[in-house]
């Protein structure tokens, strides 16, 4: 993350008021952000053991912080072009509504704190599966991916 962006994010922090924190990452060159409230941790990607008969987006099981978690490939969910798929390097553990899953991402970009009003889904200009609003980060519009919606959509696809 550039120094200017950090200063901008830091400038928006109000220690008194409530604010939301997002983890900005990318998958298949698509930048997205996850609410830190749903995020349990990040790590480099470990060994993934395929599980036969599961949905296509769940590529297998992987070990994460002492537990076995389902590994979700966002590229399969968003049907991203395989040519645009970069090598997956990191894993993000999310938990929402009693569900846990490891999202496979290309990179971890930055952390971003903002006003809850700013992270509104009212004027969302895109419609990713699991999207719940969007934020402005360094002049770019980045969709907010809700872990709960995302995991539910996996169930619906299944």
């Amino acid at each position, binding site marked *: 993350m550039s120094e200017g962006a950090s200063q901008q994010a830091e400038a928006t922090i109000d220690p008194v008021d409530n604010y939301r924190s997002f*983890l900005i990452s990318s998958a298949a060159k698509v930048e997205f952000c996850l609410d830190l409230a749903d995020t349990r941790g*990040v790590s480099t990607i470990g060994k993934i053991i395929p599980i036969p008969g599961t949905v296509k987006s769940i590529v297998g099981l992987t070990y994460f912080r002492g537990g076995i978690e389902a590994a979700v490939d966002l590229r399969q969910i968003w049907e991203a072009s395989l040519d645009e798929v970069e090598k997956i390097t990191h894993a993000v553990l999310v938990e929402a509504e009693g569900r846990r899953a490891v999202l496979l991402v290309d990179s971890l970009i930055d952390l971003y704190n903002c006003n809850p009003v700013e992270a509104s889904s009212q004027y969302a200009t895109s419609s990713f599966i699991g999207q719940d609003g969007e934020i402005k980060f360094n002049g770019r519009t980045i969709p907010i991916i809700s872990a709960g919606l995302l995991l539910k959509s996996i169930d619906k696809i299944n």
Partner: protein
Amino acid sequence: MSRWLRMGLTDKLFVPLVGILLLSVLLTTYLTSSAQRISDRQRVEQYTGRIRAQWITLVRELWIKGEIDDLNHILRVSVETDSLLTYAILYDSNRRVIAGTSAIDTFSVTGLRLNIPVHGPGNQAGLFVAGYAGRFESGTSLGLKMAILIAGLSTIIIGSLIYMRLLDKVLLKRIRAASAAATAIANRDLTQKLDESGDDELASLAHAFNVMVVNLRSLTKAIHRVVVEIDDETAGILASVDSQALLSMTQKEQVSQITRTMASMAEISNQIAVSSSEVVKIADNTLKGSDKGVAATDDSRGLMDQIAIGNSERVEQIKDLKRRAVQIGDVMEFIERIADQTKLIAFNASIEAAGAGEMGRRFEVVAREIRRLAENVSESAGQISTRITDIQQSIEAISARSVEESQKVQSGLVASLHTVTVLHSIREGANRTTEQVQGISTAIGNQNEAAANLLNSLKVIDRQSGELNQGLSGLRFIAGALKGLSTSLHEISSSFKLETDPESTSSRTS
């Protein structure tokens, strides 16, 4: 008659003539002696008076002049006559003529010796008639003697005429035939033949004439054959002379051409000699340059050896630097991994801080700073890695360049060794060139000398060719003249009539 015909010509002419002459002499002597006596006496009387008068006058004049100092010395005075001329001669006792006189005038015969026989006593005049001398006597009748004289003379004349006629009919006919034959031969008719009948000189002459004609005819035929051969040979000589002249001209031209070529060769040889001297100088300079080149190449080889050694050391240093750069890259990768781990830890710390709520905000700030530091470290490590990669690439390039330069230096060393070898070859070649050129110069000198001798010989040959041409021209003129002569001789020999015309032969025979 037949006997007379068989007589010799001398006999034919001499015997009758002698008879006639004897007869005539006898007759004439007798008649004239008588007649002269009468006639001389009259004339002596006539002339004596004149001569005595003149004689007296002459003696007086001589006495007066002193040419006669003593009349006693005059022993004899003779008056002599010769035909109708009467003269007197005064001579001394030694018969030396003192003076003479004739009936016509006085003449001087002083000093001559008188060889005329004198008749009569001394100091007396005497008279002489041709063939008869003596004193006058009285003779027979003059008329009878004159008649006898005339008859004798007539007999002589008539006999002579008759004999001449006989000769004309018998002898002169054959002589005329011989004359005609001779004339015909003179007119180149060699077919003439005389009658050889008889035993006299004319028959011998005719036989000799016929033999002569036969021999002359054979000679003419031989001359004709020889003339034909001479004509053929002359034509051959002319053709040979022409051929020789043409050959000589060609030879002269070729000699001139060879002379010009030899002159050109001599000039070229001189140029080659000059060029050889220049080549010797160039070879000498090449030799010196080769020595300098060898020395310079040796120095260059030493320097190149030093460069090669230095370059090898630099290559090793560069390899060491490359290894160190790789080690630095490994360190930087390690730092980047630590930074990534740190960043990941910072993310997790931030996540945990967010989960901690209000209590984790301070920790979240620290986690953010740690993450920023990790990002800076990672960024710096990436930049350092990039720099190190650039340095490694530069080192690779330098190493490759050093290796290439080292190879070039090695190639330069090999090239310098080759250059030294070539320079040694050039030096050896320059030495050999000098030796060869010196040999060429010597050979050219000998060649020039030989060419000069050859040129002189060619000039002699050229001059002799000119003289030969002149000689051939003269020989051709002579051969032409000889041919003209042979042609003339051929014409002359052809003009001789050698074969008898059948018609004329038959007519002659008939």
